[in-house]
């Protein structure tokens, strides 16, 4: 077969009207959707898009029915991922290059100006610094408290099961409920903390009257909620440590600290790393507790709260989208850093 015949043959294949010709359906969709958006009225364009999309799905399913069964089975999950995650992600990435506001109809391309603006905005850097401070403190407290709780609950003692449920409860509460609870807890007039301190000092105790106090208040509230999560992961590691290792160490009279460092820690290290990763990512997005406890007052406005103001209160959609991408980038860098460190330690091990 010469080159011309082969070309004719593949063109013929592409244009063949068959139920398994997904290539033609894709071509029709790629041409038809933008064309309908420009030419047809809104409703008709939506109908045309749905028809073309449906056709693409049908032809793809027919084509894959016998050839790619595995792919076909995961396709619904991928479709949901695309619709719910990837498309909005790409859409907001696109928006970040415009000056679009949700409350206006105008749209114009401004390239990287949003990124340029936010990277040179001292307020953004201030909010990032506040966020970083809160991340370090809150994650550190959660790790230490969570680890200690795990060590405690790895032993058997009376009422252990019930106490474990109590300790896990905060993790199941909503952020808003926790924020509201701690707001009352810290209240200088009605709050429990102030009432107790008042008994000794004869003065109401105002925790959130300084930046340090406000940060402590947020860290305590967040740690109260999430230390149990760390505990749960570490506990899973602790129960997997073979008992005979401790028995051998005990026979050899190995000191407690050495026992912990040489036997316990290696078994929980991986899970601890995972907890650190999850909690860091979550803490980076800290919003609800700060919003309810201080509303960003006492210099505690996090970057997530700042994004909320830009996006929801000021309707600066594009600007907040670009800010969100900076955050996403930061979280991805942090995640990869953790994964790199974790992998290196595994290899060393």
């Amino acid at each position, binding site marked *: 077969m010469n080159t011309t015949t082969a070309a004719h043959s593949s063109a013929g294949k592409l244009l063949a009207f068959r139920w398994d010709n997904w290539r033609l359906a894709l071509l029709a969709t790629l041409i038809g959707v933008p064309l309908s958006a420009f030419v047809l009225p809104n409703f008709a364009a939506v109908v045309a898009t749905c028809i073309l999309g449906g056709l693409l799905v049908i032809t793809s399913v027919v084509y894959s029915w016998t050839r790619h069964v595995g792919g076909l089975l995961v396709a619904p999950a991928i479709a949901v991922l695309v619709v719910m995650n990837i498309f909005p992600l790409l859409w907001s990435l696109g928006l970040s290059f415009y000056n679009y506001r949700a*409350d206006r109809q105008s749209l114009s391309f401004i390239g990287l100006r949003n990124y340029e603006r936010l990277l040179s905005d001292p307020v953004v850097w201030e909010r990032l610094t506040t966020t970083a401070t809160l991340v370090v403190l809150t994650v550190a407290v959660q790790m230490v408290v969570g680890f200690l709780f795990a060590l405690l609950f790895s032993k058997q003692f009376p009422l252990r099961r019930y106490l474990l449920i109590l300790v896990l409860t905060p993790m199941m509460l909503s952020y808003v409920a926790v924020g509201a609870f701690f*707001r009352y807890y810290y209240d200088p007039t009605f709050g429990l903390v102030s009432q107790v301190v008042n008994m000794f000092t004869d003065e*109401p105790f*105002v925790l959130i009257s300084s930046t340090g106090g*406000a940060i402590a208040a947020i860290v305590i509230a967040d740690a109260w909620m999430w230390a149990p999560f760390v505990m749960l992961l570490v506990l899973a590691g602790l129960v997997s440590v073979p008992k005979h290792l401790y028995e051998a160490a005990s026979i050899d009279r190995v000191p407690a600290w050495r026992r912990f460092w040489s036997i316990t820690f290696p078994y929980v290290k991986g899970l601890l790393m995972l907890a650190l990763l999850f909690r860091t990512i979550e803490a980076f997005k800290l919003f609800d507790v700060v919003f309810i406890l*201080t*509303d960003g007052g006492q210099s505690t406005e996090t970057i997530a709260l700042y994004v909320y103001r830009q996006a*929801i209160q*000021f309707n600066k959609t594009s600007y907040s989208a670009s800010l969100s991408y900076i955050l996403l980038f930061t979280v991805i860098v942090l995640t990869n850093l953790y994964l790199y460190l974790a992998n290196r330690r595994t290899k060393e091990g």
Partner: protein
Amino acid sequence: MNRTSKLLTTLVVAGGMGLSFSAPSYAEEITLRMAVPDWPPTRIMKKLFDENYEAKSGNSVNLEFDFIPWPDYYTRLNASLTSGEQKYNMAVSDSQWLGAFIEGGYYRKLNDLIDADPELKTILDGMHQAPLQAYGTYPYKSENIYGFPQMPDILITYARTDVLCEASEQAAFMAKYSTKLPCTPEELDQMDWTMYGNIGEFFQRKKGDMLAGEPATDDFYGIAYQAGKGYDFSSMQINGFTWQHGAGIWDETNIPNAQAEGVVNSDLAVVALDRYLSLLKYMPPVVKTGSMDIFKTDELFREGKIAMNVQWIGFAESAINPETSKVANDVAFASMPGLRKADGRIDRSSNIGGQPFVIMTWTEGQEIIEAVDFVKWWLSSDIQHQFAAAGGQSAIKAVYNDPKYVTYRPWNRTWASGLEWQRDVWHIPQFFELLVQQQEQFDLAITGKQDAKTTLGNIASFQQRLLEDAGLIQ
């Protein structure tokens, strides 16, 4: 066919034809949806609608109220409008949001409807200018009307008569300040900020100290007013101090000539803010956290922790309800304190509260006819009287000047005179950016992080820059 049957046939046909020509047109079912904050004034509105409303058109009009909690209200309404879902035909709106949502194309300009409807025009002509301009006009104080009062509101004084009128407290106050501790509503009406400060200083009691002839069961404080960082929970009070001292905020009625620099941070404005800040030391310690908003001061008052509070009328109903207030039987209401001028007159200039309701641009055809009829019904004298009797307020002069009006609720005596002092904050689309930065700066001053001059300097320079960028200052 005989004659009888011919006659019958003719009658039946004629009757049928007659019926077909004279059959009444069936009443349409019209459903209007309205976004409203979930609180008593809108609950009363729904109750009155359910009990009283009959559309003049004969249509079956159903008004669906979507009650949204106050803290989420702006977020939910904003999301609904900007998403383009066109879910609501009407909405209760804060007056400050007018610019943003009008420029976005959501709130309908109503002048054509008003001009075409003499009844509606008469109603608006009979309305007090302060709420009409604050709730309805954009640009502020222009001729363009976009909204009508739903729940007009002003700041007034709530006072504990059981504490203030008690004989030993009266005597001690007289001994210390050589003046009578105000106790009756008429005496409280004469209170200026100096007296308010004295009362704050006087009632600093620790748990166990004597208070109104008995040992105090908890720490007790004299005064409170809003000083919170959230939303507008300090600006609304500080604006009053600013205007009373003869200073100003950026004047949006004078675009593009009005400046922020030199006005917002003028010497008089600094004195006004200093005066506001000087009274905070007499307030409950929560003020140091920047979270003493209107909900917290309301709670402190209802829980019996303070002698006086400057608060919106919208909270008064719960203050006199024994189910929600520990001091329900001992509350008096008076005008907000003000600044006493050299001639002895008290300037009570204040930022107006309350909310208008608006109609959306996509409300058309029969829906807009029914929406306007609903507006006229709501603002009619009879319904406004019923609203006031149930705890609301009216901006219609003929209603609030009626002698019956002051008998509805104890705070209504402050209403007519209070309206004369009301002004409003900005209506421009950049409102939220101005407000958030201003609240942040006021919070720094309230929590003792910076002085009044620095605070107002920062606010003025931010506003100047933002408004210049927006083309509103040249």
